[in-house]
């Protein structure tokens, strides 16, 4: 009888011990992987540091938008080689541009900008709607896929860059943009099909100033 009580007590004690201090946890494989990856990379912190330390100092290296537009119109092949960037193989080229001009139109999704003062139509459409994809991440060539062992993290950088532009650049731009105003900008553009994608050139703004 005493032995039975002792055995049961030991079992109860052991069960309690393992209940509070389990030797292992069983979790779904997908969840475990997702948690591991989540813990390993913080896109918000990465992009915050990238924006300040690398992207902003590179604004001065952006190509002149009027020159790029002229090259895209006159010699697309040379424009691709001289000004375009891509992360890998593909028909799409990305352009990191700066310039100044006059606002000629404003709607829900874009601000039309003329780079010349002759009153012609918009040569650029600065995007003010929802932002998707990798244009900002890849246009400057400052973030390389080789830095990331898992491409999901590389893609999270894009999502975060888009979010920062949507939440910090676009609200002020939309508030201040008025037809006739003079504007300076730094931004990124994606061109796959010509002349469609360059008339007007769709630019995602990274920095804007009103003169």
């Amino acid at each position, binding site marked *: 009888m005493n032995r039975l009580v002792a055995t049961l007590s030991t079992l109860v004690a052991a069960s309690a011990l393992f209940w509070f201090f389990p030797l292992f946890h069983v979790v779904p494989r997908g969840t475990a992987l997702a948690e591991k990856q989540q813990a390993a990379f913080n896109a918000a912190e990465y992009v915050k540091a990238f924006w300040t330390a690398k992207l902003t100092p590179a604004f001065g290296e952006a190509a002149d938008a009027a020159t790029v537009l002229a090259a895209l119109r006159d010699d697309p092949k040379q424009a691709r080689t001289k000004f375009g960037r891509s992360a890998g193989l593909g028909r799409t080229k990305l352009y990191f541009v700066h310039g100044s001009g006059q606002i000629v139109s404003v709607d829900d999704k874009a601000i039309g900008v003329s780079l010349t003062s002759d009153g012609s139509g918009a040569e650029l459409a600065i995007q003010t709607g929802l932002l998707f994809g990798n244009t900002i991440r890849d246009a400057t060539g400052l973030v390389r896929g080789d830095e990331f*062992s898992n491409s*999901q993290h590389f893609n999270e950088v894009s999502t975060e860059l888009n979010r920062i532009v949507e939440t910090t650049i676009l609200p002020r731009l939309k508030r201040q943009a008025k037809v006739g105003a003079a504007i300076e900008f730094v931004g990124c553009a994606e061109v796959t099909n010509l002349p469609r994608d360059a008339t007007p050139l769709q630019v995602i703004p990274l920095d804007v100033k009103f003169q």
Partner: protein
Amino acid sequence: MRFLRRQFLWAVIAATGLAALASCGRKPAGEGGREKIAVVVSTLNNPWFVVLAETAKGRAQELGYEATVFDSQNDTAKETSNFEDLIAAGYKAILFNPTDADASIANVRMAKEAGVPVFCIDREINANDAAASQILSDSYSGCVDLGKYFVDTVGENGNYVELMGLVGDNNTRNRSQGFHSVVDRYPGLKMVAQQSADFDRTKALDVMESILQANPDVDAVFCANDAMAMGAYQALVAAGKDKDVKVFGFDGADDVVKLIAEGKIVATGMQFPKTMAKTAAEYADQWLKGKREFQQKLPVAVELVTKDNVSDYGDYGAKSEPTR
């Protein structure tokens, strides 16, 4: 004279012995003395991967190698066994379509330790220091474009289903994330079901049939590959809903491209398997000729194929293939 003859004899014996010793460590070459390249593919139970494997094999042969295809049957244990066999058999390079982004790393490391370079094609491994290079579809961007077209064609309100691929594959997650990075911005689009069908047509048919029973009011289906899009479409035809539900795929498989031209499937993402496979074979050739510096992850753009541009695509590619 006799001394010289004996010395010559000893020299011949020594040279033969040295040659024999030197050859002990060498693995047999292929037919006609050609070096051997292995193509290890996750599955051959999907025409898209057959094209990937056969193109890699064909390009390696064009470059003067003996090439053999190994099928991992979507099983990492089988993949390991393939790697062990081909390393022992003296293959000089591996063109590799991994089964699992994490579980396949060990196989790549095994080959690297044996001095055999591995070039990943289409699917990624979660390591930057194992493969010689990884030539990968930009699934995320491709699905961003599909997501935008989805919103354009389905509208900003509606119910949709998502069929996902293999859980361990990064392409599964990248495609889903790319698609949701767009569609989730429209609160009127409601995902009524999200299930994995392992990139498999038959499984997709079964899964879609079950989903339709529980959710008869569906406007669209987003499938993470074209095999599943075909399975989902088949289920919709059987349920008499194929004209009401819009199907979106991903891959650029020939049967789906044809159905887009016929207006039965809405869109897919063309992945250019031939470009990726040829590039991997050419990289392996360059490695074997001494080059060592390769971009670790080389993304290959995915292009949106719709009824408006379908005539530009077919035979697992486009009229002009993407370049740098």
